[in-house]
C-alpha cells in the first residue's frame, strides 16, 4: 500500500460508495472534540452577524472529523502546518477554545496576541499561514530538519483541494520525495475552492499528482473517526519509519460558506452537502450520546463566548 503507487482502489472497505457502512460508536472524548469544533465555528458565524468579529474567517463546518481522527496519531515532537481553514486543526491539537476565540476577537489571552488572527496561528510546533501552498516547502524544510535531528518525528501539512493549483506545492513534493523526508500531506478535498468546484480547477486528481512524484497515497471517503484512525495509524507510522512523504486525501464537505456569507452554491448542491454531514448521520445512529454531548458543547461554547467577550482587548506594540 505504501509502495510508491497510487492506491485509490484499496480504500473500498472504507468507501461509502460500497454501501453506507454503519457508524461505529465514538468515544465521548472524540465526539466532544468534534462537537466543540462544530459549536465553536457556528458561534463565529453568529459573532460575525452580531458585528463582534471582523475580517475573514473560514469555518470547517462538516470537516471536523478529519483533524479529530488524525491528531491522536501525531506526537508532541511532530510539526503541524495548518491553513486558512484551521480552527479545527488547532482545537483538535489543543483543548484551547478560549485562546483561539480570544485570538479571533483580539482579547486578552489570545494565542498570538490577536496579531495573527484566524489564519496565522503559532503555538509550539503548530503553525498556520493564510497563503495557499506556502507552507508545503516550509514543512518540507522542517521535515529535513527532523530527519537529521529527531528521526521518527514528522511534519504534517494540511491543504485544501484548490491549494493544489499552486506550483510551489509540486516543488515541495518533488523535494520531499527525492530527499525521502517524513512529510505527511493531508488534503481535505471538500469539492470546492471558495466558489470554484474542484472539477473546474483541477485536471486529473490528487492521487495522480502524488503518483507523479512516486509518493504513496491514500484516499478516504468515510467519515467514521474510529475506522479512519485505525486506517491512518499504519500510514502515519510508515511516514515515521520509512521517512518518506505520504499524501492522504479526505473526501469531505464544506457545510458553511467559504468565509462569511459568501456561498453561491445552488440549493440542490447545499442539500447534497448537508445530506453528507457526519453529524446528522451520527446523531441518527447514536441519538442519546449525540444529544448529550451536543448540548454540553453548545453550552460550553456559549459560556466561552461570553467569557472571552468580557475580556479586555489585547495589548501589543509594533516592533
Amino acid at each position: 500500500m505504501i509502495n510508491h503507487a497510487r492506491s485509490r482502489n484499496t480504500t473500498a472497505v472504507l468507501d461509502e460508495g460500497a454501501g453506507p457502512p454503519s457508524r461505529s460508536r465514538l468515544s465521548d472524548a472524540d465526539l466532544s472534540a468534534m462537537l466543540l469544533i462544530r459549536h465553536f465555528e457556528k458561534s463565529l458565524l453568529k459573532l460575525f452577524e452580531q458585528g463582534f468579529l471582523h475580517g475573514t474567517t473560514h469555518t470547517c463546518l462538516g470537516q471536523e472529523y478529519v483533524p479529530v481522527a488524525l491528531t491522536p496519531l501525531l506526537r508532541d515532537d511532530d510539526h503541524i502546518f495548518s491553513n486558512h481553514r484551521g480552527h479545527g486543526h488547532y482545537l483538535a491539537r489543543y483543548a484551547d477554545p478560549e485562546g483561539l476565540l480570544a485570538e479571533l476577537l483580539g482579547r486578552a489571552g489570545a494565542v498570538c496576541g490577536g496579531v495573527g488572527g484566524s489564519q496565522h496561528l503559532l503555538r509550539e510546533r503548530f503553525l498556520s499561514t493564510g497563503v495557499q501552498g506556502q507552507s508545503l516547502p516550509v514543512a518540507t524544510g522542517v521535515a529535513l530538519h527532523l530527519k537529521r535531528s529527531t528521526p521518527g518525528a514528522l511534519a504534517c501539512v494540511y491543504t485544501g483541494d484548490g491549494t493544489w493549483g499552486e506550483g510551489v506545492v509540486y516543488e515541495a513534493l518533488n523535494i520531499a520525495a527525492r530527499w525521502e523526508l517524513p512529510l505527511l500531506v493531508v488534503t481535505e478535498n471538500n469539492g470546492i475552492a471558495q466558489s470554484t468546484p474542484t472539477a473546474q480547477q483541477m485536471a486529473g486528481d490528487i492521487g495522480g499528482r502524488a503518483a507523479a512524484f512516486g509518493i504513496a497515497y491514500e484516499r478516504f471517503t468515510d467519515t467514521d473517526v474510529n475506522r479512519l484512525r485505525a486506517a491512518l495509524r499504519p500510514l502515519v507510522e510508515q511516514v515515521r519509519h520509512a521517512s518518506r512523504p505520504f499524501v492522504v486525501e479526505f473526501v469531505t464537505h464544506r457545510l458553511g460558506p467559504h468565509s462569511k456569507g459568501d456561498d453561491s452554491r445552488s440549493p440542490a448542491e447545499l442539500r447534497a452537502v448537508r445530506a453528507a454531514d457526519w453529524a446528522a448521520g451520527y446523531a441518527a445512529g447514536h441519538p442519546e450520546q449525540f444529544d448529550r454531548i451536543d448540548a454540553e458543547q453548545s453550552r460550553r461554547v456559549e459560556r466561552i463566548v461570553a467569557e472571552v467577550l468580557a475580556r479586555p482587548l489585547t495589548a501589543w506594540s509594533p516592533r
Partner: protein
Amino acid sequence: MTAPRVAGDLNTALHRLFAEDERAMLLGEDVCDPYGGAFKVTRGLSTRYPHRVRNTPISEGALVGVASGLALAGDTAIAEIMFADFVTLAFDQLVNFASKSTAMYGRRLPLRLVVRCPTGGNRGYGPTHSQTPQKHLVGVPGLALYEVSPLHDNHTLLTRMLDDGVPAVLFEGKVLYGERMFTGGMVDDLFGYELTDGVARIRLHDPVPPDCVLITSGALVHRAVEALRELLLHDEIVAELLVVSRLYPVDRAPLLSLTGPARRVAVIEESTAGGTWGAEVAAALHPSLWGTLAAPIRLIHSLDSIIPAAAHLERQVLVQSGTIRHAVKELVNG
C-alpha cells in the same frame, strides 16, 4: 442621482470595455458568476461573455503568465489577483517576463495587459491579506503602476492603461469598493475637486493659498479629506490634496505645476515604512522644488510593522486620518 460605488464603477467600466473590445479577456480566481469575484467587481461579466471570462485555479504565477500570453498574441488581457498580497507569487511573470518583453527583444512590443490587485488594510484581514505592495513594483522598467481612486473614471483609466501598451498593475483599495465615486467637482460642503492632466486636485470651494500640499492616491482619499477638514477647522491649517492615478512612472510635470510654490509638501500612502512610493515621489520632485521647500518632502505612511489582524491593533499600525493630521501639523508648525 447618487453616484455609483467604486466597485460598481469598476464593474461598469469592465462591461463597457468588453462591449467595445471583442478581444478583451479576463481571468482570475472566482471571477465568474454567480460569485463574481471576491469583491464582486467582475459581476455579470461571465454571464454576458462566457467565453471571455475564466475562473482559474489558485495559480497566481500562471494566471498572470497566461494573461501575458494572451496579450502577446494580440488580445486585451485583464487578470485579477484576489488579494494584492499574492502579487508576490506573480513577481517573476511581471518583472522578468511581461515588462521585459516590451523592450528586451530590441524593439518595442506593446502588450495590452492589466493586472488588477485589491489592496490594503483597515478591514481586519490580517498580515497576509492587508498589504499595500505597490512599492515593491516601483522601478521595473516597462511596468506601469496605477491606483483606482474615487475621483478618476475607471473606464477612462482602463482604456488609457491598455492603449499605452505598457503592462500595468492596477491597485484597488479594498476600503474604496463600498464608497461612492465623487462627481461634478464636489467632494463635500468644504471641498471641491478638478482634474488636471490626470491629477485630481482637492481644495476649498473658495481656494486660498495652502500652507501645505499633500500628494496621495485613491485608497487614502477619504482619510486625507477627513484630515483636511480637521486641519482647517481645528488647526487653522489649509492643505490641498493631489490625488494621482498613475503611481509609476511618477507624473512629474503636473505634480510640479500643482505643488507650485508650496513650501511644504507631503506624500501619503498606506504602505508600511521603508522603500515607499513616497520616497520615489520625493526623489522625483526634490530637484525642482529644492529652492522653494522649507523642509524635505514629508513621507506619511504606516509603521514599520506587519499588519495585525485585530482591528484595534491594525488601526495602530496603518495610516489613519489622525496620523495625517498629526504629521501635517508637525510639518507646518515645524
